């Protein structure tokens, strides 16, 4: 793997760089290898996986810099696709460092079932523990999966993606299946670059946007895992290109492919059909319903028509803001580059037609996505539900490339390099329990034993930082390069200073709390965790220690048995109850405080300063 990566990193510049640009790159490349070698010798205990991922990403970032800013670059959509293909080929083994997760084994089970049994019934696959060959022998039917009249066990997922993976899976099993998705990723990159060219975007802008789009999250991680998002993005781009060229023979099949991948894309397809002004094409929207009906007996599968009824306005606000700046799943932290699309939106009238069509076509989808309980994508790598939209956003950004604030762009690039390194070195951390924390906050909290997570905006478990986090969007329109970078450094330092003080609220399940016994509530991997009041269950002799402020606090808890506990030297008894209760407690002085259960059991939600 190391040899292949080294070789690929040597080949990449030869594909696109020429003349003096290539020479200069080679100089930087040689120097980087030299210093990497020196550091490798000086840091013998350093995590080799992280070190190698960091080096590869550093070199990829250097290459991207030369690609974007080089004077002598040989560039075309095909070369872009080739670069993406090489990077995806290297990323797949990194992703497979841990077993496939989330919906991935279920898609693959359907592929396996179709390949071996020529049916969609997974009952025998579950019985034979077929997924054990992908180290997922624990896979069982998901709650609510459709069951046939004769006990057939169907997957809730639309079968089209599984069907697409059949050739690859037949040839090379799991690797072949993922290679199929990567191939769609490569096609998507080529198609998007061509689309940008069609829309009249200059080569400099395309080369600048390309690495952020093709070699960075979320595209990189979804192109190297088994999810329908990247094929859907490819079909979407093809559909939009077809609409632009008014070639129904192109956009209608593409749109059909998209809606067959996921029922939810019908909402996007409706927008595309409206943009194309072709009423007959509305028939496409019915096709996935028919397919699902045929496969499972219910045209809506696990969905209901009720999901189309508008919800509480607050849900829309939370979902929209969450997609923008949430610490675990928002663009700001998971793919900040795409927030430059704000600049494109502010220049709507001059934006390319493809961008406007893509955005308008997606509005209905976004409208129904944001109020949902799992707007963030559930147990999946971040931004799952927005991946299909990324080519459109990339097009918009490319159109306003000259107006993109360079200071913020530099920071977004550095952060993106960090995200890619983290994702490649620890692919399992792309999945996160939706507790309201994120990987960075958890790590810092557990290291310092103070609540860093409260400073990362969370719209999953609303916190004070959430609304303040929206101010960060200003960074993406302010063009004062130097001031933005310095202000960010200052912001980080102030945040660190604040984070080391005790917070107003202590959530007992959070990483900064040192748990001596007990368990998370609800249990890990609970579906729709956000519907529960999260907490930590403690029984007699269990304790939790955390940094707390002096003063009177309200403890929120639920206990079915009743409990006696000690907090900061005072004992309290609480009665059993079916509902969440509160009790006033006093903490005599600021500092590490221990909550210890003396008898009974209690599920403690949070401690809130009055």
């Amino acid at each position: 793997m190391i040899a292949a990566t080294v070789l690929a990193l040597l080949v990449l510049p030869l594909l696109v760089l020429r003349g003096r640009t290539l020479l200069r790159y080679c100089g930087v490349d040689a120097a980087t290898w030299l210093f990497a070698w020196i550091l490798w010798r000086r840091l013998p205990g350093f995590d080799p996986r992280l070190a190698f991922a960091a080096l590869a990403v550093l070199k990829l970032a250097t290459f991207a810099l030369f690609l974007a800013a080089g004077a002598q670059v040989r560039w075309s959509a095909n070369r872009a696709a080739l670069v993406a293909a090489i990077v995806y080929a290297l990323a797949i083994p990194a992703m497979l460092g841990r077993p496939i997760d989330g919906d991935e084994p279920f898609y693959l089970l359907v592929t396996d079932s179709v390949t071996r049994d020529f049916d969609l019934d997974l009952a025998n696959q579950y019985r034979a523990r077929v997924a054990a060959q992908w180290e997922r022998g624990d896979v069982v039917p998901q709650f609510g999966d459709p069951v046939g009249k004769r006990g057939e066990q169907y997957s809730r997922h639309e079968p089209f993606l599984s069907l697409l993976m059949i050739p690859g899976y037949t040839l090379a099993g799991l690797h072949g299946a993922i290679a199929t998705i990567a191939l769609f990723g490569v096609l998507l990159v080529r198609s998007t670059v061509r689309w940008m060219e069609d829309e009249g975007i200059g080569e400099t802008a395309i080369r600048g946007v390309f690495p952020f789009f093709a070699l960075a999250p979320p595209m990189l991680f979804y192109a190297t895992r088994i999810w329908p998002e990247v094929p859907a993005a490819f079909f979407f781009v093809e559909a939009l290109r077809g609409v632009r060229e008014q070639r129904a023979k192109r956009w209608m099949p593409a749109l059909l492919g998209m809606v067959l991948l996921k029922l939810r894309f019908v909402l996007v397809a409706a927008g595309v059909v409206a943009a194309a002004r072709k009423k007959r094409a509305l028939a496409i929207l019915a096709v996935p319903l028919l397919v699902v009906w045929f496969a499972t007996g219910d045209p809506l599968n696990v969905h209901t028509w009720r999901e189309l009824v508008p919800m509480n306005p607050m849900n829309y606000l939370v979902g929209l803001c969450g997609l923008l700046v949430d610490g675990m799943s928002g663009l700001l932290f998971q793919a900040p580059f795409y927030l430059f699309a704000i600049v494109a939106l502010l220049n709507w009238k001059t934006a390319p037609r493809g961008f406007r069509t893509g955005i308008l076509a997606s509005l209905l989808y976004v409208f129904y996505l944001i109020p949902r309980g799992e707007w963030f994508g559930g147990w999946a790598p971040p931004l799952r539900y927005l991946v299909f939209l990324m080519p459109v956003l990339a097009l918009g950004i490319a159109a306003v490339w000259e107006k993109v604030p360079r200071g913020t762009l530099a920071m977004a690039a550095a952060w993106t390099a960090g995200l890619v390194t983290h994702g490649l070195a620890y692919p399992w951390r792309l999945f996160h329990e939706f507790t309201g924390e994120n990987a960075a906050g958890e790590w810092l909290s557990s290291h310092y034993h103070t609540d860093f997570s409260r400073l990362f905006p969370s719209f999953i478990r609303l916190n004070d930082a959430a609304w303040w986090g929206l101010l960060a969007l200003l960074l993406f329109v302010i063009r004062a390069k130097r001031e933005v970078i310095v202000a960010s450094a200052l912001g980080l330092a102030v945040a660190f200073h604040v984070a080391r003080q005790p917070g107003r609220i202590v959530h007992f399940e959070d990483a900064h709390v040192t748990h001596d016994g007990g368990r998370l509530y609800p249990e890990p991997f609970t579906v729709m965790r956000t519907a529960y009041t999260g907490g930590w269950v403690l029984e007699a002799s269990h304790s939790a220690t955390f940094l707390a402020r002096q003063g009177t606090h309200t403890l929120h808890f639920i206990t079915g048995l009743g409990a006696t506990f000690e907090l900061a030297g005072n004992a309290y008894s609480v009665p059993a109850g079916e509902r969440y209760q509160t009790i006033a407690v006093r903490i005599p002085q600021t500092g590490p405080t221990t909550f210890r259960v003396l008898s009974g059991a209690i599920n403690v939600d949070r401690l809130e300063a009055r």
Partner: protein
Amino acid sequence: MENLRWIAAAALSAYACSLAVHHTTPIDLALPFLAIAVTLLAWLSYSEVLLGVPVLVVAEIAVPDERLRLLVFGAVGATGVAIAVNVGRGFSPPPPGEGGLKPRPTLDGAPIVALIALLLLRWIPLGHVRYGRELLLLAIAAAIVFVLGRTPFAVTVAVVVSLVTTAVPLRTLAFPLAVLLIAAAARTFGMPALRLVWPSTVVLAFVMLFFPWSGIVARAFPYFLQRAAPEKPRTLVRQALAPRQGETYWVPEGATHLIVSGANVAHLRRGAILGRMEPGAVDIRIGDVADWGYARREAWHKAHNPLPRDAAGEVRDYGYEAWIDGAGRIPLPRGARLIRVTADGALPPHVSLQVEGFE
């Protein structure tokens, strides 16, 4: 106005770093100083170099391992200096067709880069700075840069020459002065202003990468090019053997190396025999080990010891005060359970061979 904004940026960067500092090493405490240096380097080259400031803050917050954290600081400094010497304003213009930014007539970037590098390399920890000597050295360095034509090569020569000058005792300043005179003579007799951009960049970047331990870079140069041994348990012996004195030791289970250093042997040259290990009649020489304190700033000017081939010394202090003791690893004879170490009889009476322990 533009320069005022840069000054404000430097001040805010320093303030941000001072807020973030919570580790106690002199390098961490000097973070605001480093932030100002990064801002200056950004001013001289690309303003994107300022990204180093948030990186410094993040490293201070999120990298608990001291060695790694200081290396990140070093990497920020190295990157800044490397970019500045490559594209910085104020350097002599490259030959036609080589690209680069046009020089600014009112600003001389090359000596500024050299001074920034030297401040980072020599002025941390600040409490140990001998101001008069250091200012004189900075002046000599700036003069070298000017004499050699304000090129990346000139900066590198100035920085390296100044770095290896301990300035203790005062007469060691003769070395940079000699280099300055030779450079002036060479230029007078027609030596061109050498640019040597890539070699200069690599050398400067190397020096800056390890600036948190610049004393070791200066006085025990190959140390950072050696492979660092993984942390292994050490059985301490700590016994000094006088000339002709021998001692027998049980080899601890799993030990593969004997750790030895010398006392009062700094004047000996490579190859001088200090003692012998039996079985196997293994000579212990200068080169295998060195004087325990030879790399200290005050001792170095009269030391002739090279860095031990397999250095086992402990890195002590930070910045220009950093040094490594002269312990070296001697492979133990295979399968030996008992060894005898004898100090050489020809050694002067005040010299001793120090058996530090087993590893």
